[in-house]
């Protein structure tokens, strides 16, 4: 690689590292990382940011070697590939986190709306899950994890639940599903968890609208099993939470 090409290649690599360092800083400072990975993993990103910064220092401080032949194509390739996830992050509409499309793709009836599974009991899910639930006395704030964890304790209770709306053709005109995702590390391992809601206003809410539902929790037959259902007395649209996910262990 010619000495000037070497410098250009080093410059391109440094640009890639620098852009990632800025992106990590931005995600940490703005809390945007919470749409992608678990909230409590911020130290991991901070550690990554520090190491990337050290890489930048090491690369900039490196003296140029003797002239060598070569092409700049690999350096451009590295730069474009390095920036690709950030392009998707910025342009792809990732601002709301996982949505009803992901819910449909990852939905497993026996795990989520259908037969309740002990597997979900391992997820504590209390962290960050009740922040929007502000019970007014009559209604007990509950999370989807608590419902799936110990449904028996909540049957017959007046509850208040926060989540995003999912609707499709399989649901009746007075039905919608309120769902959220449980994440362990990142959005790739997110498991959908939901609860059927019966309300006359079901058609008023589009998929991916965040709602607070108040009503009595019961059970209903669905897809060969028993699942939770809320007979809603009130359903109101609310702004999306800063952290849309429930956290696992």
């Amino acid at each position, binding site marked *: 690689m010619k000495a000037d090409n*070497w410098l250009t290649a080093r410059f391109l*690599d440094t640009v890639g*590292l620098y852009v990632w360092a800025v992106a*990590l800083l931005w*995600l940490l400072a703005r809390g945007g990382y919470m749409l*992608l*990975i678990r909230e409590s*993993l911020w130290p*991991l*990103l901070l*550690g*990554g940011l520090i*190491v*990337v910064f*050290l*890489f930048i*220092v090491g*690369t900039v*401080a*490196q*003296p140029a*070697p003797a002239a*060598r032949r070569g*092409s700049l*194509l*690999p350096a451009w*390739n*590295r730069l*474009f*590939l*390095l920036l*690709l*996830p*950030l*392009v*998707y*992050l910025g*342009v*792809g*509409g*990732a601002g709301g986190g996982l*949505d009803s*499309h*992901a819910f449909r*793709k990852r*939905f*497993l*009836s*026996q*795990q989520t709306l259908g037969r309740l*599974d002990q*597997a979900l009991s*391992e997820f504590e899910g209390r962290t960050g899950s009740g922040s929007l639930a502000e019970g007014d006395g009559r209604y007990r704030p509950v999370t989807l994890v608590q419902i799936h964890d110990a449904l028996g304790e909540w049957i017959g209770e007046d509850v208040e639940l926060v989540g995003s709306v999912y609707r499709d053709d399989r649901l009746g005109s007075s039905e919608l599903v309120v769902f959220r995702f449980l994440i*362990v590390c*990142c*959005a*790739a*391992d997110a*498991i959908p968890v939901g609860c059927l809601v019966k309300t006359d206003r079901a058609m008023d809410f589009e998929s991916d609208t965040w709602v607070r539902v108040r009503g009595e929790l019961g059970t209903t037959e669905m897809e060969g099993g028993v699942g939770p259902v809320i007979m809603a007395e009130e359903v109101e649209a609310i702004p999306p939470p800063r952290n849309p996910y429930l956290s696992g*262990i």
Partner: protein
Amino acid sequence: MDHLATETGHDLQTSSTISRAANRRWSLAGLIFSAGAVLVLLVGRGSALIPTLSVTFAAIVLEALPFVALGALVGGLIEVFVSPDRISRLIPRRGWLAITAAGLLGLLIPVCECAVIPVTRRLIRKGVPFSAAVAYLIAGPIVNPIVAGSTVVAYGGNWWPMVVRLICGYGTAVSVALIIDSFYPGRRALRRDFIDRADADCHCGHGHDHPAPGASVRARILQAFHVGGQDFVVVTQFLVLGAFVAALSQTTIEREAFLALAETPAAAIGLMMALAVGLNLCSEADAFVAASFRATLPLAAQMAFMVLGPMLDLKLAAMYLSFVRKRAFIMMAVSMCILVFALMMIFHELLQQSAGGLR
């Protein structure tokens, strides 16, 4: 290119010309891939698919990136501060002993599958036998205390799934390493350009000058950061490739329809292996996803997911190919799949025969 694998004592000048050609081809393919991915984004903008794809793609990369950076930093420090002599003194001389010992290295260096790759690349360049490196590469992300702990927690404090996972992971890794050692002894499984750069340049392959002997500690530390940074950039490009394909599969395949095919134990095990390859989960988190299938699938299928996933998935495949030859990689991948499938079928039969199975 693979016919060159059998050559020994190659002419450096000729092979480095071939390496440059291969490097150009790969770079061109990478650029086309990037352009295609951007095109998908621009054309698909406004569809329901793109936000999910964007979140999943960015999430996989963001979660893995700090681990890759850490692994690259460790690799850079090894490159600058650990001499090949010291490495060769630490490695047992007998091949099988080196492999079995390397399979347990994850207990000392507990890193996930993303961090293990830059460390392994650097260890190979320092003279660690490829077969021993493979054992560490495959077993490390499973046989380590963090993964053991997360598996126990995911299964509600039950130790058995963790013990089975570690034993199967270790057994598979050592077996694959022994297979690779017999078919590709020495460094024959390594990509020619990976070897050439190590031989021709400076054992780090990045076209830079190393500090002179007796250089200050500061200069050596800066050198380690530079080497780490270069490794980070190289490995991350493969991570991005694999993560994009994985995110695309997560976004387009419906899990319910996919798992509806799991009508027999063999089908369930096979499908969960396919899911492990497609989902690209971190080995420290995958047990929670596996455990969520307890109501629907046999334990052997969940175990197949947990054993194969940290060894082989789409992003790992891309990263392996950054230094392993195509044919050797295919042999590794096929060996892993056959071994895991066979082990899990046996495990399932044992469970069926024993009263009070683990499910």
